[in-house]
């Protein structure tokens, strides 16, 4: 998501007096988000902490996070994009009908207040979770929210940030962007990286049965993917690296036990605001690290002939 209007959590902690969580449940999924980075922190600019900050939660159901919020807005399922679009219109005083507002589960009164709060805060931040980015509209929802944040900068300082999930997924995005220019859904089958989610994203590749071997690391698709994808992993040679014997290990031809990151394996992990942090492993594992195992597989592969014959063209011509 290049070009997004965002900041670090440090800035949020110091300055954000208006915080929106959209489609996320930090109280249960990111338990220290409130206390460490957002509403509970006191800072030089917001000395009274919680009293100086306003929090709005937008979600399809009232989760535990609603208790922490000043305002809870219950959006109708699948209507996030419409609601964001209405807000984009309302901040610019464009005409929106009551029927359009009702269709999202809101009232004009509630939205007028929200728009007022958004425009009149000193530093606003919208955090969006999987309830926004993984439901109807998907990345179009995220794009709309990021646009809303950008447009609010005509009135005040406003940013948006995804609430990234478990582990070092943010790191995976950053590393792939750095190494290939793209964040995910990449193929090297022409000798250079190409990007096309839907074609090269794993679920699609597996369900269609496109790949003929799989190397799985730091994930357990055998437990989380749709059944046709799991069936394909069983058909092809699957290699799995994990600190535990997982569902994927059980269907894999090769499983290698590795040291858990941050506990027994050193290295770096990215926080959701794309800040890299060093890991401080406390234990010494009897197993090798992921890094070491993948490097050794790479070295082993270098001894074998390269997949593309020498002198072969790097691009496919129109004749194939």
């Amino acid at each position, binding site marked *: 998501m290049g070009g997004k209007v965002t900041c670090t959590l440090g800035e949020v902690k110091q300055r954000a007096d208006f915080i929106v969580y959209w489609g996320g449940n930090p109280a249960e999924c990111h338990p*220290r988000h409130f206390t460490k980075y957002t509403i509970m922190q006191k800072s030089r600019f917001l000395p009274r902490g919680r009293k100086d900050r306003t929090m709005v939660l937008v979600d399809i159901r009232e989760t535990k996070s609603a208790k922490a919020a000043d305002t809870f807005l219950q959006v109708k399922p699948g209507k996030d994009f419409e609601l964001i679009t209405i807000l984009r219109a309302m901040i610019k005083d464009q005409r929106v009908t009551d029927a359009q507002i009702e269709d999202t589960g809101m009232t004009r009164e509630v939205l007028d207040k929200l728009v007022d709060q958004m425009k009149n805060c000193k530093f606003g931040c919208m955090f969006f979770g999987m309830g926004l980015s*993984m439901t109807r509209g998907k990345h179009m929802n995220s794009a709309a929210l990021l646009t809303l944040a950008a447009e609010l900068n005509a009135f005040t300082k406003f940013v948006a940030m995804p609430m990234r*999930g*478990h*582990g*070092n*997924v943010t*790191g*995976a*995005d950053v*590393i*792939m962007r750095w190494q290939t220019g793209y964040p*995910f859904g*990449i*193929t*090297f089958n*022409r000798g250079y*990286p190409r990007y096309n989610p839907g074609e090269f*994203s*794993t*679920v699609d590749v*597996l369900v269609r049965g*496109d790949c*003929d*071997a799989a*190397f799985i*690391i*730091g*994930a357990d*698709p055998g437990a989380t993917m749709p059944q046709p994808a799991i069936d394909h992993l069983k058909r092809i*040679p699957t*290699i799995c690296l994990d600190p535990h*014997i997982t569902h994927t*290990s059980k269907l894999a*031809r*090769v*499983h290698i*036990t590795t040291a858990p990151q*941050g*506990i027994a394996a*050193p*290295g*770096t*992990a990215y*926080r959701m605001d794309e800040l*890299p*942090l060093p*890991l*401080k492993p*406390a*234990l010494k594992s009897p*197993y090798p690290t*992921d*890094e070491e195992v*993948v490097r050794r*597989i*790479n070295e082993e*592969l270098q001894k*074998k002939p390269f997949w*593309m014959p020498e002198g072969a063209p790097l691009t496919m011509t129109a004749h194939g």
Partner: protein
Amino acid sequence: MTLQVVNNATCTFCGCVCDDIQLHHDEVRIHEARKACVLGTAWFLNHTAEKKYPVALVDGKEATLDEAIEAAAHHLHEADMPLVYGMSNTTCEAQKECAALADQLGGLLDSHTSL
């Protein structure tokens, strides 16, 4: 027994990546993760330095690390369109090696983000 203390350890369980955790351990397991939340505490206390699992399994049988690495390289090299997937629960250093792996295989590279 006195436990060893690691200050400002980093929790990678969720995207908050809290880097202020105090770990109390006896080199085998972590007994206490101060400042961590419920999820983080479970994450730290559930991983130990014990040798609970075989080093590697090849076709369901216990194997040495060398054998497993050789088998992995063999399967990946044989394939026409290998897939490198995951990278959520691993370090950036390992992720970089994974990008190199997909590159030299001419394969697919993807993470949890695409779901």
